């Protein structure tokens, strides 16, 4: 179950290059193994969803991609470059790696002292993009996610759905090759969830490569090319969404889906 598996072949036109290649990845916290020999490859333009119970290692797996967590063993390759190997960061330019990978957090993590538009500008300026260009891109991105009318508001003046859409704009500002979504709708009410999922659907349609940790199983079913079920730090089952979510072969997967009431 842990062999290197590529994302489902539903988009034959996309170039086959892998944006992420994770091999034999293990990670423990205080002696407790949270990821155990995990292999995962994400090809360009693919959308991979990771599902599973809280505490099962989904989020840790995602955070290993941009090295917010450092794995103890195994390899992490991003955009063709080996960035981490057996507990050592081998990537020379960590900042550049992280600019290749945008991340959207469960709790938004917008900078509360800056307006929405400044939130989107900050990292661009630190990456050396000129002020006028950074501002233009920020405004364009806020328009794209539908919150341009709130561009000059502070985060705590925004609704949850607006905050998360600003966070998506911020993650897109550096033109990443991959977007990570860590339970992006778990803190949101149903209306805000719809807003955010709608933006993500647009991104998916535009061909963005995405890794998504989610409890929104119907949404995972709808947009994903590949679904990974993680439990107890291991990949228990993976494959096309209609297989993993519709006709799971593992008992543990069926048990998990049953606890959700619906397998979409």
């Amino acid at each position, binding site marked *: 179950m842990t062999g290197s598996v590529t994302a489902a072949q539903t988009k034959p036109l996309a170039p086959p290059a892998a944006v992420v290649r994770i091999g034999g990845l293990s990670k423990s916290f205080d002696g407790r193994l949270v990821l155990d020999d995990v292999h995962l490859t994400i090809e360009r333009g693919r959308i991979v969803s990771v599902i599973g119970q809280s505490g099962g290692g989904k989020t840790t797996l995602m955070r290993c991609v941009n090295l917010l967590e450092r794995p103890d063993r195994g390899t992490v390759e991003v955009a063709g470059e080996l960035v981490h190997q057996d507990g050592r960061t081998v990537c020379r330019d960590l900042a550049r790696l992280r*600019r290749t990978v945008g991340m959207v957090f469960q709790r938004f993590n917008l900078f509360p002292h800056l307006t929405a538009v400044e939130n989107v500008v900050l990292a661009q300026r630190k990456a050396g993009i000129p002020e006028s260009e950074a501002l233009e891109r920020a405004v364009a991105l806020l328009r794209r996610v539908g919150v341009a009318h709130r561009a000059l508001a502070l985060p705590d003046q925004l609704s949850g759905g607006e905050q998360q859409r600003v966070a998506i704009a911020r993650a897109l500002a550096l033109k990443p090759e991959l977007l990570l979504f860590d339970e992006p709708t778990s803190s949101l009410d149903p209306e805000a969830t719809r807003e955010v999922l709608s933006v993500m659907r647009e991104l998916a349609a535009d061909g963005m490569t995405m890794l998504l940790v989610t409890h929104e199983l119907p949404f995972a079913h709808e947009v994903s090319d590949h679904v990974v079920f993680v439990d107890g730090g291991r990949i228990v089952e993976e494959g096309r969404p209609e297989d993993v979510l519709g006709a799971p072969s593992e008992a543990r997967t069926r048990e998990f889906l049953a606890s959700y009431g619906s397998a979409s």
Partner: protein
Amino acid sequence: MSDLAGLFEVPWSDYRPDLLDALRRTLSYTVVSFVGAVLLGLGMALLRLSRAWPLRAVAAVYTELFKNIPLLAIIFLAYFGLASAGIRLDVFTAGCLSLVVFYAAYLSEIFRSAISGVHSGQTEAGQALGLGRAGIFGHIVLPQAVRQALPGTNTMLVDLLKSTSLLVTVSAAELMSEGRLITSATFRALEVYLVISAIYFALCYPLSQLLLLLERKVRAGVPLSPWRRRRLRAARALLAQDPPATAVGADVKAGAV
């Protein structure tokens, strides 16, 4: 009326130049000591948050030491104590040094709790955006910590201004010392110290009100720096322009689910 007139018999106009001089000295002590205390306090706060335990220990010992000694004892140590050990500091240096080490201890506590109070998700968001340690501290953590630390810091500034009066004990020629001089020349202690108190009040009350106003503005996110104002003005101008026809966000709410 005659009682009130009898209360004020000191020829104040004769003392005006001396008082202005003393006032200037009080303000010099306050400004120099406060700037020094903020810098030392920030340094100590950063040491307290350092990953290396010896640095943390140094900062902890410093803070506990100076927080638990009276300021007056520190002033005597700096001026008389060091002099008897062969280190002769002039009164301005000794006075500022005392105020700096005393208030830095308190400020370091305020700064430390403000910095560690910034949610760890903020640092992570900065990391995920490829910002380095300095960028994360300068652009994300520090501005939020300043907002948090402002009320306590402002209280300390007003307190420091009032505490410069303790320097009367080493004849620092500030307001309180001047008051003592005038008293010994006129023997009108009540009148003189009422006037001196009124001057302190006239300094401290507007200062604390001004700082309160600053706190409110910072909390409301009012852009105080010119470059931030310029950025927001430019953003406003861009937003006023018509969006390009390809904007997809406008129909997000209406988007099918």
